């Protein structure tokens, strides 16, 4: 089936097997391998991207369902060569170790803070339930997200 999907500002027109998951389309067709796969039951959030500005686990959608959509992946989050504040905060706060959950964590947290500036630590922990990290114990991830949330509330 023909699809036309805009990813990180670039329009891609492709013929895809109708059963192709969006995450496989991104990774295999477009070679955007920053989006990860950590489970097969939509629990882990490693595959999180933005679809028309909303948070989406890209393993839960078929590529054909994303026809006409605008998608942002971790590769497209930085603007004008500058890290997104959430990327910076993860780096500064040691919010990652192996890095495998990180793209999904950053994508989910960036959208969350955009919609919830000033979110409390409890709200952040609750929100992050959909993203699993095995390395960090979440402590520094929460710290990073809180830093951006606080800054967003202040501005």
């Amino acid at each position, binding site marked *: 089936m023909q699809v036309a999907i805009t990813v990180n500002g670039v329009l891609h027109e492709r013929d895809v*097997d109708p*059963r*192709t998951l969006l995450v*496989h389309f991104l*990774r*295999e067709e477009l*070679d*955007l*391998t*920053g*989006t*990860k*796969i*950590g*489970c*097969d*039951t939509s*629990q*882990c959030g*490693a595959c999180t991207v933005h679809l028309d500005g909303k948070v989406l686990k890209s393993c839960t959608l078929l590529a054909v369902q994303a026809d006409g959509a605008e998608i942002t*992946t*971790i*590769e497209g*989050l*930085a603007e004008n060569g500058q*890290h997104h504040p959430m*990327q910076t905060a*993860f*780096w*500064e706060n*040691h919010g*990652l*170790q*192996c*890095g*495998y*959950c*990180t*793209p999904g964590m*950053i994508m989910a947290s960036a959208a969350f803070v955009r919609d919830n500036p000033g979110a409390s*630590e*409890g709200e*952040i*922990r*609750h929100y*992050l*339930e959909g*993203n*699993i*990290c*095995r*390395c*960090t*114990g*979440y*402590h*520094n*991830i*929460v710290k990073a997200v809180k830093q951006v949330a606080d800054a967003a509330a202040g501005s």
Partner: protein
Amino acid sequence: MSTRIFGSGIKRREDPRLITGEARYTDDIKLPGVLHMAVVRSPYAHANIVSIDSSAAQAMEGVVAVYTSEDIGDGLAGLPTAWLIPDSDLKTPEHPALAKGKVRYVGDGVAIVLADDRYRAQDAADAVVVEYEELPAVIDPEEAAGEGAPLIHDDVEGNIAFRWVMGDREASDAVFDAADVVVSERILQQRLLPTAMEPRSAMAQYNAATEELTLWCTSQNPHIHRFIISAVTGLNENKVRVIAPEVGGGFGSKIPCYPDEALVSWAAIKLGLPVKWTETRSENYLITIHGRDHVQHVEMAAGNDGALLGVRATVYAGMGGYLSTAAPGIPTILHGLLYVGPYTMGSVFCESIGVMTNGTPTDAYRGAGRPEATFLLERMVDNVARAIDMDPAELRRKNLIPAFEDGHEVATTLVYDSGDYPVAFEKALDMAGYGDFREQQAAARAESRYLGIGVTAYTEMCGLGPSQVAGAVGFQGGLWESATVRVTPTGKVQALIGASPHGQGSETTLAQIIADELGFPVDDIEVIHGDTTETPMGWGTYGSRTTPVTGAALAQASRKLKDKARVLAAHLMEANVDDIEYADGSFSVKGSPDQAQSIQDVALMAHLAWNMPEGMDPGFEESQFYDPPNFVYPFGTHIAIVEVDAETGVIDLQRYIAVDDCGPQINPEIVAGQIHGGVVQGIAQALCEGVIYDENGQLLTGTMQDYCMPKADMFPNFELGETVTPSPHHPVGVKGVGETGTIASTPTVYNAVLDALAPLGVQQIDMPLTSAKVWSAIQDARS
């Protein structure tokens, strides 16, 4: 005064590629024309294979080949077990890459399909028709070792793979017979799923002209993978290149060499095309090693005055359907030798029985044997406290080994390197406000609110380890590390290491060591790892050994370079070597500070070699093999405070305090991260994680939906403290810290919950302490 980068929590060098999605993990690497491998896996835990019909699969679109063990024939040798415990009557049953005639756990590979696309390979695997004759299965290790259990391997009588004894049974009997108090408990160390967030993956490419095989795979130890892949394929080791690119966590599960890595290698050689395999999470839960799985019968002897006299245990350790790479070493050497902990306890005895079962093979999972030891010890100390009606913190305080700086031998024959347990202990108690807590607890109880506190004092053995010891305990390898510090003509550093970090931040930590030793800016140092062709030999990243062992190799290689630089600088400045002073990467002559040579100047001159001192070779590069003289022994005290809702069984973890001593901290932020992560993994074992099989050996916790992975909202912010006791034998004094969190936190939280439940009469609950189990235990105690 020189400025030290050592001790500074600088940002990680690794992170720019990771936060932007630019890092390449194994499955991210693409090769043109690659075939995808899918594995047909047994749906039964124990069955004979009657027939395999792959004709329908062969005919499917995109399918290139389907192979069974018959097709492989002797093209692949069985996977070796590499830890052969001596004096244990060890049996190592054959572990073929694909099952031969019989399957022994759900997920055991039966056939492989190679196709041009991932989806098609899986479709075709589903179309392979295998007829099985189901056999009775056994999962519980104690049951599997008992009368009448189904026999899993014909050549492993009674399913007993080994029986390892530590200590003297009669001496132990004498201590226990004479003791005032003996407490006992049957402890279940449930099976756990390591769950590195990156699933395992392997891709192989073979060049028939050069006879070279390249294997990209999710490995914690590419040099060990090379060694084993060479052995099973028959290729010369110098023709095998193993590359562990970015690796997304391991926790032990990426140490072993699995059938899948062997199979992609074999198929790539056979077909002359690159072959890739990446497991799904469900597949990961079925086939990637599990951790723990002990049934322990434990006793502790004590005096009425609170003196701990001895501990002993009979351990049934489930090995699963095959003996994984390092499996026999985990419930033996890495377990029993920890039975003294930080206490002045004179008598230890352990009988550890490795039992084949129809579960997934087990092997090292973060802490590997040491969490299982620390848990039983701390559990029993709390039981003694209860039996003699002494406060558990007071009991521990009474029995802690006093401070020592350079070696302390304990009853297990280990010689601890250094420790000051009482200082860490009191610091943790202070941070927790232990004294006040007991009052709050009493007040809360009066209102039927159940608060509890758990205290764990621990020490552990890591930084594995002297190779001579490795040999003596049957480890089929050395445990040294090697490293090369190579400085380019323009004064930039490449540090090549044999170890293979996969999330620990070692590129940063190790660069800090070199920066501190040689005075190069830390940003001018690259740490290169993971490729057997580019890096010197090393045994891998596990056992909290990369900072202690590789770090030492790098420190010593750097010191050799510095010695050379000093001589060359003296020569260039026409001064006497003894008159050369060094500070912050610059050499100067005593008394004439305007005359100086930077380390970069010296490196350039060493490369140019225009003007070398007599007998000095050109170039600026040094290598070091470092074999540690002893293990390192980090230690500390962890405390948890919980509240249990007696009406629902729900546990609220309110505070978690961790005081750890890993010697001087190179990068305190990285150390803290290791502790946070380890603590969460350990707490999750106490509270929610656990593998469940049904009586037929079907894995009921086979997805992330069914297996309780710890989530962010289960935890408070952690309160960390530190003490600093350098290791006397290490060039920069550091100890490992990768596993302490997992080792200490499980008993801490478990004991806190049981402390909360004490007034309700609950004395024991098998882990994990889910609210349903806690609630039932309260009901049972009430009735």
